[in-house]
């Protein structure tokens, strides 16, 4: 008993035991912090130029309050629904003995590959959804659920099945043991996924604009579009930043500090698989229903449009757009990885740079692409050498989507047992070599997942891409836009289908549980 107790104590001190961060690490963390602060600094600079009359009109009109209420209700409703659906799907995939579970796991994640404007278009074209709040709720829930599913799937894998056995011997039924044993253990992971969902909803433009719901993002867009008033738009964007900081604050206070420790508990037994026909049938039909509405329906609409098109496919254009998309998104994902790893290492050590860099990254994640795009235009156009190069575009992607990777990267570093790095140091390895030979390989699956998530998100990014890509550089997303902007949905279909097809590969990699480490944990 005492030994176990002692072990726990030493793990709580994990942050300190990992030792002070090196100067290079601190410098890298500061760079990320500065990069994340860039758009906020831009917004503040712009907002300060507003004249006081306009300030009052923008801030204190009744409409602003209405937008605030709509935005917050939409965020809350989507987060609640996506969490419910995402956790249920992940639970079914982890606890029920389903046929083709690997494929199902990939298919429930794949909706992240469909841009929300394409998703919304395809649902709209079915003339089934009415405009407005409810439709937006449905669309955003379906597109964001995978972020929760993914987080919950990983969390379920870390739960020791023996605990559930114990719970049952203690007289808890399935439902009770879910709420009292399982839920507390997946809570932080699900909270992190829900945070991404909340920030996604705050920054989404595709769905809210097409379905006509007034959120801050749409108000910002309208202000740019209608009055070319960058100061009011910046002010509205700052309100968005304030909301997102509130959301982040909630997530932090919801987070349980101890879960970092639990992740290193040994798994002695896998989760028991429910094998009864009834549970299989229920689970399978629920999962298939989700796949049908969130993935199959938009894909079928796209296919129908694809076959109804009149002009022949320009294969060269498709190929060029695909290669451009893949390369610039990968570039962005790799920059994000290089930026996220130091932040994750600093956050694991609980240094203020790590904590604040992470928060800043999350904060800017709520900003709509047009704001990020303009911030980088304002900053980047000062440097003609980099302005409108793929490099700057990739950098923009990394800042925009760093938030989607930093969580999984941080968790995977936190899971690397401290004693292994200590052993490596007694085995004659320098800090740098230990990182390269022990820490990084052990954290690699999480780092890869995070990087691929940035890749997936960058592939479908539009507003910043339109502004920052090199002139004449077309990605799949811009080609889709080129056609949908003039209502050529059928012409956009090949590009959209290709986007989903390309995205399927990283999605499959992400959804696959890492077999090596899983077996390692099982021992």
């Amino acid at each position: 008993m005492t030994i176990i107790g002692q072990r726990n104590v030493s793990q709580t001190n994990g942050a300190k035991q990992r030792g002070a961060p090196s100067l290079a690490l601190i410098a890298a963390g500061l760079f990320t912090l500065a990069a994340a602060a860039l758009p906020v600094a831009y917004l503040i600079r712009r907002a300060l130029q507003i004249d006081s009359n306009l300030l009052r009109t923008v801030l204190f009109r009744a409409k602003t309050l209405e937008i605030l209420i709509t935005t917050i209700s939409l965020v809350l409703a989507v987060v609640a629904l996506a969490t419910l659906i995402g956790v249920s799907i992940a639970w079914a995939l982890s606890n029920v003995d389903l046929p083709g579970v690997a494929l199902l796991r990939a298919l429930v994640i794949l909706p992240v590959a469909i841009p929300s404007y394409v998703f919304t278009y395809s649902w709209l074209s079915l003339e089934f959804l009415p405009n407005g709040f409810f439709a937006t709720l449905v669309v955003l829930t379906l597109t964001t659920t995978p972020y929760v599913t993914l987080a919950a799937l990983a969390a379920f894998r870390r739960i020791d099945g023996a605990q559930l056995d114990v719970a049952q011997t203690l007289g808890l039924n399935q439902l009770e043991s879910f709420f009292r044993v399982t839920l507390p253990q997946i809570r932080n992971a699900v909270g992190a996924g829900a945070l991404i969902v909340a920030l996604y909803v705050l920054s989404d433009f595709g769905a809210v604009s097409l379905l006509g719901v007034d959120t801050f993002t749409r108000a910002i867009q309208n202000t740019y579009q209608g009055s070319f008033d960058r100061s009011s738009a910046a002010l509205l964007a700052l309100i968005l930043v304030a909301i997102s900081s509130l959301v982040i604050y909630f997530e932090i206070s919801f987070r349980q500090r101890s879960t970092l420790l639990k992740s290193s508990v040994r798994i002695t037994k896998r989760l028991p698989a429910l094998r009864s026909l009834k549970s299989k049938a229920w689970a399978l039909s629920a999962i298939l229903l989700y796949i049908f509405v969130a993935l199959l329906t938009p894909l079928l609409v796209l296919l129908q449009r694809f076959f109804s098109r009149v002009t022949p496919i320009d294969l060269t254009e498709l190929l060029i757009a695909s290669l451009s998309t893949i390369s610039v998104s990968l570039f962005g994902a790799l920059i994000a990885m290089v930026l996220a790893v130091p932040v994750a290492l600093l956050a694991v050590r609980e240094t203020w740079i790590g904590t604040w860099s992470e928060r800043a990254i999350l904060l800017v994640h709520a900003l709509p692409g047009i704001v990020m795009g303009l911030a980088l235009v304002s900053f980047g156009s000062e440097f003609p050498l980099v302005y409108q190069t793929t490099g700057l575009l990739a950098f923009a992607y990394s800042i925009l989507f760093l938030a989607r990777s930093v969580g999984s990267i941080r968790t995977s570093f936190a899971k690397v047992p401290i004693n292994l790095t200590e052993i490596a140091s007694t085995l004659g390895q320098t800090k740098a070599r230990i990182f390269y030979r022990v820490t990084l390989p052990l954290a690699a699956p999480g780092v890869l997942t995070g990087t691929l998530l940035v890749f997936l998100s960058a592939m479908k990014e539009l507003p910043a891409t339109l502004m920052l890509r090199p002139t004449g550089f077309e990605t799949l997303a811009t080609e889709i836009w080129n056609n949908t902007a003039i209502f050529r949905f059928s012409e956009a279909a090949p590009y959209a289908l290709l986007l989903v097809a390309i995205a399927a590969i990283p999605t499959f990699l992400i959804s696959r549980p890492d077999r090596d480490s899983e077996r390692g944990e099982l021992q």
Partner: protein
Amino acid sequence: MANSRLKALISLLSALILTVSLTACAGGQNEVNSLTIYSGRSQEFIEPFFKTFTEATGIELDVRYGDSAALAAQILEEGDNSPADLFLSQDAGALGAVAGAKLLASLDQSLLERVASNYRAPSKDWVAITGRARVMAYAPDRIAALPSSIDELISENWKGRLAIAPTNSSFQAFITAMIQTRGETATESWLRALQNNSPKLYEKNSLIVQAIDAGDVDAGLVNHYYTWEVTEELGREINVKNSFFGPGDLGNLINVSGAGILRTSKKQSFASELISFLLSDEEQARFVSDTHEYSIVLPELRPEGLPALNEIKAPRVDLANLSDVGRTQALLIKVGLL
């Protein structure tokens, strides 16, 4: 082992990225014989014109396509550092915003004189290229009597039958024109009456036309060319027709797409050449036949099935002032349409 695989993957990816970014960067922004264009006009419709221009002059065009308003915002952010030589906009508003920030160069008198005085900026720094008429799109089997004025649309029997796109710049330009001609108070009461009729709100003109075809709504205020766009997308005839209002009615507003040359451009003569090309009789006729827009140089030409520009009897409106939509938006917000 996992390490070496990871390393191999990373080096492969970096190689790929490097090649692609290098080739992409090489895209000749600094070539002498080229122009950089920010185009708010969509690629599908304008690219054929660009191709003809390059073939005729040998001047290469690097075109950045985007939303007119977003491109205007981008140019405003870039300021003196803008790499753009020419800005092509879907509407007068975006051009006015850029012109208002004194970022456009004065145009040659010869260019300005190609068009009637109400189709160019008084500040002489932008010029219209094509005209877009506001119309009422409607389902012929459901609308018996066509209205001759927009004021009929606020009557009781239009309740719930009309669609508008209040966030769209073309609708906002229409309201701006109304404020200019009728004053703010009158416009507000018109908007309130319209709002009382509970119109259906859409994000885009094309969605309105589609909704009319689908029977969701009977009529809508749109630009005239969307009937073609939707027909082409759906690949069939649609149950939607365009109707103009009576002579001089505000509902017949002609908005324009236009072009301006960036003050900071080092290739202003090339840019002038392109504008001159787009305003040539030949290309103007091509706009009418290919993109179904109105020519402002040749007002007697008519898009298939529609009256000619000089037959429409458009209201007299100062297009240059249409960029001042701040008041318009405030009003739309006030009555609850935005």
